[in-house]
């Protein structure tokens, strides 16, 4: 009986870098192109890793290793958790959205100065200012 794994398959490595899979190379090339585009136009880009075909666990880890980690990390905690980690390449961010149970909802590579989810919004800031002024107007508890 012939099993699928018994059938010899020779994969065409294409223009891959070293031992990296063609998909990892393709994503890294995309990141390089969009980073260059951002420097010219300031147009932010988001690469949705869930939209990548055939992104198995090994390929995913290989991509994560290739981008590695940089100097900045942050976490949004609002029922759900969003982990934001700058990669070794400044302006390239690995963003992981987790649900209430900690499961990964989606993972994104954002190419921008600061991911939007970290920025405060003027309306939220105005509401915060109002609350702060109210708090200051009240006698402070000792």
């Amino acid at each position: 009986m012939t099993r699928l794994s018994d059938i010899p398959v020779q994969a065409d490595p294409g223009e891959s870098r070293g031992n990296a899979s063609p998909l990892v190379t393709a994503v890294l090339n995309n990141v390089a192109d969009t980073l260059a585009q951002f420097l010219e136009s300031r147009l932010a880009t988001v690469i949705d890793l869930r939209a990548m075909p055939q992104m198995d666990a090994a390929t995913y880890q290989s991509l994560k290793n290739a981008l590695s980690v940089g100097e900045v990390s942050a976490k949004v905690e609002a029922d759900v958790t969003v982990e934001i980690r700058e990669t070794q390449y400044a302006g390239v961010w690995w963003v992981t959205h987790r649900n209430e149970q900690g499961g990964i909802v989606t993972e994104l590579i954002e190419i921008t100065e600061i991911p939007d989810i970290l920025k405060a919004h003027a309306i939220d800031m105005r509401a915060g200012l109002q609350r702060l002024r109210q708090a200051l107007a009240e006698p402070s508890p000792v």
Partner: protein
Amino acid sequence: MSTDLPSRSDYSHMPADSSDGVTFDEATVERLLQLGISRRRFMSYCAGLASLLALPQSMVPRLAQAATSTTLPAVVYMSFQECTGCLESMVNSFAFSGGTTIDNLILNMISLDYQETLMAAAGDQAEERLLSVTAQSGYVLVVDGSIPARWDSGYFISGERSGVARFRDAAKNAALLVAVGTCASFGGLPKADPNPTDALSIGELMADLGISKPLINVSGCPPIPEVITGVILYYLSQGMPTLDSLRRPTVFYGDTVHEDCYRKESFEEGPLARAFDDPNSRKGKCLYMLGCKGPVTHNACSRVRWNQGISFPMMSGHGCIGCAEPDFWDRLNRNNEKGFYIPIAAGSGHSRGLPCDTCHDDNGGDDD
């Protein structure tokens, strides 16, 4: 309440995944503030939803606008031969602990002008409401349950009118019809053999009555809550989704449950589970031989999962029963037997890459 559907913007000129960021506009942030929902939590929700809907992340602000818009499309939700499980599923969508829930926001995305189970009105008051709402035009008609084909059969009479008459009158001015659940989409359990009420799906009844309007089938018994609300949000932000040959949105029904099942690995290479709770079943091996209908069932259960992404049936050791497909209750399996625990007919095995010993394990049945 407005009966006009929100205008649909053309975003086709935008790059696939580039934008000036995913910043929400002031109106959206203001509305979230009013509703007591964290903007960052909602951004994360929209990012996950865009990923789920296979939309570029640049669409996140548009999804947020649609979800928080104060221009609400009117929705008439009518129930026929059904169990109310679909409505139960929908109102439980996206619940999470603490404060204002996003499921409230989903219900606030639409102006739910008529729904017998949720509305306070009853009897004549409810009937008057239905007639006045459906006298206007442009609403979305959501239908839950199948409908007896003959108006005079005596089955399903409500407000002194047959199911056929109620549906025909309500569909007359509707802009879009959404059949929620397998009963409405394909007839479901009421249509199962011997189909005592001559139940028809909404699509079949529309054809009988000569009604030609856009129809989306959101099948499943019940449909996954995120799929129901995802379809509504997709429609509000992007317009009509791409549909498969059974009029189901391909974004959710394009793949089989089997495609993303974590037990799939052993489907091709073996070993397969041969009994519930046998060592292979416990090790996460494929439940095909125990009657799993995952390879022939198009739905997002293994991708989206149930109960806020916790699990899906195969994770509990039970195969898929194929509830999102037409006639799932009467499906003929191996040796022409019906039943949730009878493996799919072996004839379909080779074409799905089954190992030969499994495929030929039906005493010489109709193999391919």
